[in-house]
Protein backbone atom coordinates (compact mmCIF):
# COMPACT_ATOMS: atom_id res chain seq x y z
CA UNK A 1 0.00 0.00 0.00
CA UNK A 2 1.23 3.48 -0.87
CA UNK A 3 0.01 6.65 0.78
CA UNK A 4 1.08 10.26 0.18
CA UNK A 5 -0.85 12.52 2.50
CA UNK A 6 -1.02 15.86 4.27
CA UNK A 7 -2.48 14.13 7.31
CA UNK A 8 -0.67 12.84 10.37
CA UNK A 9 0.77 9.33 9.87
CA UNK A 10 -0.73 6.82 12.29
CA UNK A 11 1.85 4.14 13.00
CA UNK A 12 -0.52 1.61 14.52
CA UNK A 13 -3.06 1.79 11.70
CA UNK A 14 -0.43 1.74 8.96
CA UNK A 15 1.37 -1.22 10.50
CA UNK A 16 -1.93 -3.08 10.80
CA UNK A 17 -2.28 -2.80 7.01
CA UNK A 18 0.92 -4.78 6.57
CA UNK A 19 0.25 -7.49 9.14
CA UNK A 20 -1.27 -10.83 8.32
CA UNK A 21 -1.89 -14.11 10.16
CA UNK A 22 0.92 -15.95 8.40
CA UNK A 23 3.52 -13.29 9.20
CA UNK A 24 5.59 -13.68 12.33
CA UNK A 25 7.64 -10.51 11.96
CA UNK A 26 6.88 -6.89 11.17
CA UNK A 27 9.65 -4.31 10.85
CA UNK A 28 8.81 -0.64 10.63
CA UNK A 29 10.83 2.46 9.92
CA UNK A 30 9.76 5.92 11.03
CA UNK A 31 11.47 9.00 9.71
CA UNK A 32 10.96 11.84 12.14
CA UNK A 33 11.80 15.49 11.87
CA UNK A 34 14.66 16.64 14.06
CA UNK A 35 14.90 19.84 16.04
CA UNK A 36 18.38 20.84 14.85
CA UNK A 37 20.53 20.65 11.75
CA UNK A 38 24.19 21.29 12.31
CA UNK A 39 23.38 23.19 15.45
CA UNK A 40 20.71 25.43 13.91
CA UNK A 41 17.29 25.24 15.48
CA UNK A 42 14.57 24.16 13.07
CA UNK A 43 11.22 25.96 13.44
CA UNK A 44 9.20 23.73 11.16
CA UNK A 45 9.49 21.74 7.92
CA UNK A 46 7.82 21.50 4.57
CA UNK A 47 7.82 18.47 2.30
CA UNK A 48 7.15 18.72 -1.39
CA UNK A 49 6.62 15.78 -3.73
CA UNK A 50 6.51 15.20 -7.44
CA UNK A 51 3.31 13.26 -6.88
CA UNK A 52 2.81 10.99 -9.90
CA UNK A 53 6.47 10.09 -10.10
CA UNK A 54 6.58 9.34 -6.37
CA UNK A 55 3.77 6.85 -6.91
CA UNK A 56 5.55 5.22 -9.84
CA UNK A 57 8.85 4.93 -8.01
CA UNK A 58 7.27 3.52 -4.88
CA UNK A 59 5.38 0.94 -6.93
CA UNK A 60 8.68 -0.02 -8.54
CA UNK A 61 10.31 -0.45 -5.14
CA UNK A 62 7.45 -2.61 -3.87
CA UNK A 63 7.83 -4.68 -7.04
CA UNK A 64 11.51 -5.12 -6.24
CA UNK A 65 10.91 -6.52 -2.75
CA UNK A 66 8.23 -8.84 -4.14
CA UNK A 67 10.80 -10.11 -6.63
CA UNK A 68 13.68 -10.39 -4.17
CA UNK A 69 12.00 -11.69 -1.03
CA UNK A 70 8.51 -12.68 -2.14
CA UNK A 71 7.16 -10.04 0.22
CA UNK A 72 3.78 -8.54 -0.63
CA UNK A 73 2.79 -7.18 2.76
CA UNK A 74 4.38 -3.75 2.80
CA UNK A 75 3.17 -0.23 3.42
CA UNK A 76 4.89 3.02 2.51
CA UNK A 77 3.36 6.28 3.73
CA UNK A 78 4.93 9.71 3.27
CA UNK A 79 3.57 12.89 4.69
CA UNK A 80 3.90 16.13 2.74
CA UNK A 81 3.19 19.77 3.44
CA UNK A 82 4.05 21.48 6.70
CA UNK A 83 5.31 19.35 9.61
CA UNK A 84 6.22 20.41 13.09
CA UNK A 85 9.48 19.34 14.68
CA UNK A 86 9.24 15.76 16.00
CA UNK A 87 6.45 14.70 13.67
CA UNK A 88 6.70 11.60 11.52
CA UNK A 89 7.36 12.20 7.82
CA UNK A 90 7.77 8.61 6.64
CA UNK A 91 6.46 5.22 7.71
CA UNK A 92 7.58 1.98 6.09
CA UNK A 93 6.12 -1.27 7.43
CA UNK A 94 7.11 -4.69 6.12
CA UNK A 95 5.65 -8.00 7.28
CA UNK A 96 7.13 -11.40 6.53
CA UNK A 97 7.00 -14.91 7.92
CA UNK A 98 10.46 -14.47 9.47
CA UNK A 99 12.40 -11.53 10.75
CA UNK A 100 15.47 -11.72 8.55
CA UNK A 101 13.55 -10.93 5.38
CA UNK A 102 11.45 -8.31 7.13
CA UNK A 103 14.55 -6.40 8.28
CA UNK A 104 16.28 -6.76 4.92
CA UNK A 105 13.28 -5.61 2.90
CA UNK A 106 12.50 -2.67 5.19
CA UNK A 107 16.11 -1.44 5.02
CA UNK A 108 16.03 -1.88 1.26
CA UNK A 109 12.84 0.13 0.83
CA UNK A 110 14.14 3.03 2.92
CA UNK A 111 17.46 3.07 1.06
CA UNK A 112 15.70 3.07 -2.30
CA UNK A 113 13.31 5.82 -1.23
CA UNK A 114 16.27 8.03 -0.36
CA UNK A 115 17.93 7.26 -3.68
CA UNK A 116 15.12 7.56 -6.17
CA UNK A 117 11.89 9.02 -4.84
CA UNK A 118 11.43 12.71 -5.68
CA UNK A 119 10.45 14.23 -2.34
CA UNK A 120 12.20 17.25 -0.89
CA UNK A 121 12.30 18.77 2.55
CA UNK A 122 12.59 22.43 3.45
CA UNK A 123 14.00 23.16 6.89
CA UNK A 124 12.90 26.56 8.11
CA UNK A 125 15.12 28.41 10.59
CA UNK A 126 14.67 31.78 12.26
CA UNK A 127 16.93 33.39 9.69
CA UNK A 128 16.23 31.48 6.50
CA UNK A 129 15.70 28.00 5.14
CA UNK A 130 17.41 25.24 3.21
CA UNK A 131 16.12 22.51 0.93
CA UNK A 132 17.48 19.08 1.65
CA UNK A 133 16.79 15.80 0.02
CA UNK A 134 15.55 13.57 2.74
CA UNK A 135 14.42 13.72 6.31
CA UNK A 136 17.69 12.22 7.43
CA UNK A 137 20.13 13.95 5.20
CA UNK A 138 21.08 16.73 7.56
CA UNK A 139 23.30 18.09 4.79
CA UNK A 140 22.44 21.17 2.81
CA UNK A 141 22.30 19.99 -0.76
CA UNK A 142 21.13 23.36 -2.00
CA UNK A 143 23.69 26.07 -2.46
CA UNK A 144 23.38 29.15 -0.32
CA UNK A 145 23.17 31.81 -2.98
CA UNK A 146 21.72 35.21 -2.24
CA UNK A 147 18.25 34.31 -3.49
CA UNK A 148 18.00 31.06 -1.48
CA UNK A 149 17.30 32.67 1.91
CA UNK A 150 14.34 33.69 4.01
CA UNK A 151 11.27 32.06 2.54
Amino acid at each position, binding site marked *: MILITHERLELEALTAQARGPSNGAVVTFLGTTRDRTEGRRVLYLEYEAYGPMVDNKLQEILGEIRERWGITDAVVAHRIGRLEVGEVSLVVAVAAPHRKEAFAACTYIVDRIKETV*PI*WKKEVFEDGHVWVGSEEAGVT*TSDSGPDAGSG
Partner: protein
Amino acid sequence: MKVRVHLFALYRERLGCGQVEVELPAVASVEALLQSLVETYPSLARLVPNTMVAVNQEYAGRSDALHEGDEVALIPPVSGGRL
Protein backbone atom coordinates in the same frame (compact mmCIF):
# COMPACT_ATOMS: atom_id res chain seq x y z
CA MET B 1 8.43 21.72 -30.25
CA LYS B 2 7.18 22.52 -26.81
CA VAL B 3 7.91 20.65 -23.59
CA ARG B 4 6.53 21.34 -20.16
CA VAL B 5 9.10 21.47 -17.37
CA HIS B 6 8.10 20.83 -13.75
CA LEU B 7 10.12 22.50 -11.05
CA PHE B 8 10.37 21.52 -7.42
CA ALA B 9 11.86 22.68 -4.16
CA LEU B 10 14.80 25.03 -4.70
CA TYR B 11 14.15 25.28 -8.44
CA ARG B 12 10.55 26.24 -7.96
CA GLU B 13 11.64 28.96 -5.57
CA ARG B 14 14.38 30.23 -7.86
CA LEU B 15 12.05 30.60 -10.80
CA GLY B 16 9.08 31.62 -8.69
CA CYS B 17 6.95 29.12 -10.54
CA GLY B 18 6.15 25.38 -10.50
CA GLN B 19 6.29 24.81 -14.22
CA VAL B 20 7.45 26.51 -17.39
CA GLU B 21 6.94 25.78 -21.07
CA VAL B 22 10.05 25.73 -23.18
CA GLU B 23 10.22 26.04 -26.97
CA LEU B 24 12.93 23.84 -28.48
CA PRO B 25 14.10 22.85 -31.99
CA ALA B 26 12.29 19.82 -33.45
CA VAL B 27 15.24 17.62 -32.56
CA ALA B 28 16.52 18.34 -29.08
CA SER B 29 18.09 16.44 -26.18
CA VAL B 30 17.74 16.83 -22.45
CA GLU B 31 21.07 18.66 -22.50
CA ALA B 32 19.73 21.17 -25.02
CA LEU B 33 16.73 21.82 -22.79
CA LEU B 34 18.97 22.46 -19.78
CA GLN B 35 21.10 24.88 -21.78
CA SER B 36 18.02 26.71 -22.91
CA LEU B 37 16.77 26.95 -19.32
CA VAL B 38 20.09 28.30 -18.06
CA GLU B 39 20.04 30.99 -20.77
CA THR B 40 16.61 32.11 -19.68
CA TYR B 41 17.23 31.70 -15.95
CA PRO B 42 20.93 32.29 -15.20
CA SER B 43 20.37 31.56 -11.48
CA LEU B 44 20.03 27.88 -12.44
CA ALA B 45 23.56 27.71 -13.85
CA ARG B 46 25.28 26.55 -10.67
CA LEU B 47 22.56 24.01 -9.86
CA VAL B 48 22.21 22.24 -13.17
CA PRO B 49 25.36 20.09 -12.96
CA ASN B 50 23.87 18.18 -10.00
CA THR B 51 20.36 17.96 -11.37
CA MET B 52 18.61 14.78 -12.37
CA VAL B 53 16.07 15.04 -15.12
CA ALA B 54 12.92 12.98 -15.42
CA VAL B 55 11.09 12.62 -18.71
CA ASN B 56 7.55 11.33 -18.43
CA GLN B 57 8.32 10.36 -14.85
CA GLU B 58 11.37 8.25 -15.59
CA TYR B 59 14.95 9.33 -14.97
CA ALA B 60 16.60 10.28 -18.27
CA GLY B 61 20.16 10.78 -19.49
CA ARG B 62 21.48 14.10 -20.80
CA SER B 63 21.66 12.81 -24.36
CA ASP B 64 18.14 11.36 -24.43
CA ALA B 65 15.91 12.88 -27.10
CA LEU B 66 12.85 14.90 -26.16
CA HIS B 67 9.53 14.79 -27.98
CA GLU B 68 6.64 17.18 -28.41
CA GLY B 69 4.44 17.12 -25.33
CA ASP B 70 6.96 15.41 -23.03
CA GLU B 71 6.56 16.03 -19.32
CA VAL B 72 9.99 16.97 -18.04
CA ALA B 73 10.93 17.51 -14.41
CA LEU B 74 14.11 18.91 -12.90
CA ILE B 75 14.95 16.83 -9.86
CA PRO B 76 17.22 18.52 -7.34
CA PRO B 77 19.44 16.03 -5.52
CA VAL B 78 17.13 13.86 -3.44
CA SER B 79 19.38 12.75 -0.64
CA GLY B 80 22.34 14.06 1.26
CA GLY B 81 25.36 11.92 1.86
CA ARG B 82 25.33 11.60 5.62
CA LEU B 83 23.13 8.74 6.65
